[in-house]
């Protein structure tokens, strides 16, 4: 869920984008004969093994932290693999293939035992840190302990804390607890073996250890929060310098051995990242060839859209589904939306095309959504329980409106009703979407007044607090959801499982607590058969849509630009539909 923070930060970036950027045309040395529009979406484009050169990246924002144990942003997780090796990682590929988890620091995927409650990994021999010392399983254990249990490092996800068996006396992390054994549920019987003991069956543990939090950290070199400026690398590059808000530079790690690393190509000699750059300026430089990539991976600014879609530039553009859903949660406990027919009326009457246009249209906004799971997930199944038709000249047609009215009739609210729709005040496009929905609902007599809350407190103080939502009668809640790992469970559990309803900071905004859905998800995650799990996720999706408590709006998409000189470019589904940085090179 926190992956969404990257989007919030960038939405602010869009706003801050000054009008001072140069207005020159995007002249490029591209002849208009690049690999083609969307060429990198389903397969890696510009495949090359040519080494050398400098890969120049930039961002309009900054890292949450470049410390692998203290980061959450999708681009940070993607990029940190250049200077760190987690037990597993996502396959450097494009399309569906990129959702596959493969071993990285480990020799193979995890071996489950004890009904998926115990996971064992073997670590490759001969892997060295940038200071020349050998990586052992204890460094991995230490990395998990510091990232999940210390009170200092708070920015990353806390899944290991949630799923690992705690010590008898709650473990306080390595900075407060200097005992030899540390967290007892992570065993390191020898330097190459690491065993995780979980408190419940969890069949997708390989996805959890793909997070940057299992990148080894040598205890002797750990400096807590300051480690982000003195990272000890285990990957092909070492961080030469990192200055918050300014820049980061990486150069080759002399102790990295290609023989221990079958997946990395390590092509450029040097990698530079400029931070806090003007978003429009980044686009200009991408188009003029002064920059290889916008590291944040959320697409070009609105100003550059017509330029990159012009015929000569379009072959260098990808427009992938980014793997997250923008939707409207309908709260089960706010009258009259407690009645399924009223919810279904909203499903029909919410003009999704208007919402899509308000969010930036089909290219920069996304595709109209009809399911909870986005199209790039393996467990996605295409269906539409509440089909809509557009009238000529815009708006929903009479047949769709009639269906909505029919549902209102069955709900006992033939003349419609009044409720509130919430959006994040600092996200202009979300507010624009709320207005479009408000306008569409008015046509069937549903009066939704817009309430806005700051994004920083949206979940902690407002819509994620059931008492607040009930008290203020907020029936409809706009939200965007990106999974922390790209499976149906990673996507669905946090937004439709009853256990995700919390007194504050919850993400199940519909307060959906259906025993059948809960059970199906619980059964799936303890099932080691991937195909069976995938099937269940598809079924859960249908159950949620029948219940009508989530109105899917758009499968988010972005316009990403890949300059002609960048090699091995592919859209990875493992990191929110941006380019995979693992094997990127320059020519």
């Amino acid at each position, binding site marked *: 869920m926190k992956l969404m923070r990257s989007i919030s930060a960038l939405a602010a970036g869009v706003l801050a984008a000054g009008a001072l950027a140069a207005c020159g045309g995007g002249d490029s040395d591209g002849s208009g004969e690049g690999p083609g529009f969307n060429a990198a979406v389903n397969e890696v484009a510009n495949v090359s093994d040519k080494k050398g050169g400098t890969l120049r990246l930039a961002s309009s924002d900054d890292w949450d932290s470049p410390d692998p144990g203290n980061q959450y942003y999708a681009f940070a997780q993607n990029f940190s693999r250049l200077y760190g090796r987690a037990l597993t990682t996502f396959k450097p590929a494009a399309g569906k293939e990129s959702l596959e988890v493969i071993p990285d620091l480990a020799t193979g995927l995890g071996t489950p035992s004890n009904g998926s409650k115990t996971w064992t990994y073997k670590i490759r021999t001969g892997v060295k840190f940038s200071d020349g010392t050998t990586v052992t399983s204890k460094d991995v254990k230490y990395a998990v302990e510091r990232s999940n249990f210390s009170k200092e490092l708070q920015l990353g996800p806390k899944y290991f804390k949630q799923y690992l068996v705690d010590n008898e006396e709650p473990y306080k992390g390595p900075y407060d607890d200097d005992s030899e054994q540390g967290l007892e549920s992570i065993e390191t019987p020898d330097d190459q073996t690491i065993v995780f003991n979980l408190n419940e069956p969890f069949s997708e543990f390989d996805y959890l250890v793909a997070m940057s939090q299992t990148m080894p950290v040598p205890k002797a070199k750990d400096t807590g929060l300051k480690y982000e400026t003195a990272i000890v690398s285990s990957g092909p590059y070492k961080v030469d310098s990192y200055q918050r808000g300014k820049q980061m530079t990486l150069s080759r790690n002399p102790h990295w051995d290609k023989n221990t690393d079958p997946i990395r190509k390590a092509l450029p000699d040097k990698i530079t990242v400029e931070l806090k750059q003007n978003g429009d300026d980044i686009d200009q430089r991408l188009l003029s060839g002064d920059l290889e990539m916008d590291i944040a991976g959320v697409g070009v600014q*609105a100003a550059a859209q017509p330029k990159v879609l012009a015929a000569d530039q379009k072959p260098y553009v990808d427009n992938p589904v980014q793997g997250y859903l923008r939707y409207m949660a309908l709260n089960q406990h706010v009258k009259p939306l407690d009645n399924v027919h009223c919810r279904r009326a909203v499903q029909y009457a919410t003009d999704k095309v*208007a919402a899509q*246009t308000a969010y930036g249209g089909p290219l*920069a906004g996304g595709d109209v959504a009809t399911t909870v799971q986005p199209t790039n997930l393996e467990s996605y199944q295409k269906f539409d329980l509440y089909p809509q038709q557009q009238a*000529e000249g815009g708006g929903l047609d009479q047949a769709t409106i009639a269906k909505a009215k029919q549902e209102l009739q069955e709900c006992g609210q033939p003349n419609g009703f009044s409720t509130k729709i919430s959006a994040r005040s600092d996200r202009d496009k979300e507010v624009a979407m709320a207005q479009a929905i408000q*306008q569409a609902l008015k046509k069937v007599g549903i009066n939704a007044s817009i309430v806005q809350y700051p994004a920083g407190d949206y979940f902690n103080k407002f819509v994620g607090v059931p008492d607040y939502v009930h008290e203020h009668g907020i029936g409809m809640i706009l939200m965007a959801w990106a999974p922390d790992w790209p499976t149906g469970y990673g996507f669905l559990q946090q937004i439709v499982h009853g256990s995700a309803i919390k007194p504050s900071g919850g993400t199940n905004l519909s307060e959906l607590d259906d025993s059948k859905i809960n059970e199906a998800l619980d059964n799936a995650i303890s099932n080691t058969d991937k195909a069976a799990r995938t099937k269940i996720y598809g079924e859960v999706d249908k159950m949620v849509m029948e219940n009508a408590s989530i109105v899917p709006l758009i499968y988010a998409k972005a316009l990403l630009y890949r300059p002609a000189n960048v090699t091995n470019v592919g859209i990875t589904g493992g990191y929110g539909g941006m380019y995979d940085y693992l094997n990127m090179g320059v020519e």
Partner: protein
Amino acid sequence: MAAPIEVTGSDSEAQPESVLEGMQGKKIQGRSLGQIAWMRLKRDKVALTGGGVVILLILIAIFGPFFVQDPLAYHQNLIDPTYSRPKDGIWHSGISAEHLLGVEPGTGRDMLARIVYGARISLLVSFLATLLSVILGTILGITAGYFGGWVDYLISRAMDAFLAFPLLLFAIALVGVVTDGSFGLSGNGLRVSVLVFVIGFFNWPYIGRIVRGQTLSLREREFVDAARSMGARNGYILFKEVLPNLVAPILVYSTLLIPTNILFEAALSFLGVGVIPPTPSWGGMLTLAVPLYATAPMYMIIPGMAIFITVLAFNLFGDGLRDALDPRAK
């Protein structure tokens, strides 16, 4: 009676009244301060134009909404879905006979209607806020200036404190804190009240200082002494002797405070703490226009021009008014 020096049949007979006659035979009249000011103002064409525009804007704000389209109605068919901007018109603004100022990107809402409704919010907030500042500033300024001593000290320090206040930050924080339903108000009623309060309540020292300074000099004047020696009470002196002499500066500075407040309201709306969408406001339109400056430039230019013209008109009128009422202040 028939004196030799008498010239009969002449228009310019030397009579006592003739002293009061001007060159062309017009009578010299005693004129009030207001009349003199009006005469001066009439000669100032720039100020008159400003004043005319101000009146026009007020009329538009009051009656305009009866003549324009629904500012909330979507015209999706006028929007190019690829860039979510208007399909045609000057620089993709959708200007046509039906939509004289074009339509809004993403939604196709009529811009003219949104500008006219936006004028309502801008003028309403800035007038009410100015009124609040003037009332507070006058009462406190006159009290400080007239009574002096510790009262003056206290109020003057309060003015310093208010002037040092980080107003913009406070406004943003306040809107976050004052949630819907506070003070028995909700929705736009609450937002407008908060805006008026923030802008008005924190601007009073500007008026307050001027009123205090004027009162300081007025209270030493002979007519005040005379009133006091005749046993007039403080209340009488303040309201009947001092206040009437303050009307001119208060009027001038109110007129000059209004454009400042319009800009401040636009700034707050721009930062997302203005009125709640979909209610149109000029600052709010500018916010949405910033990322689109290259794809739909007119969307930024139109509300920008609306703010520019309004502020300029008020400023020109205010300057002219000051020159007319107090030429020495030039």
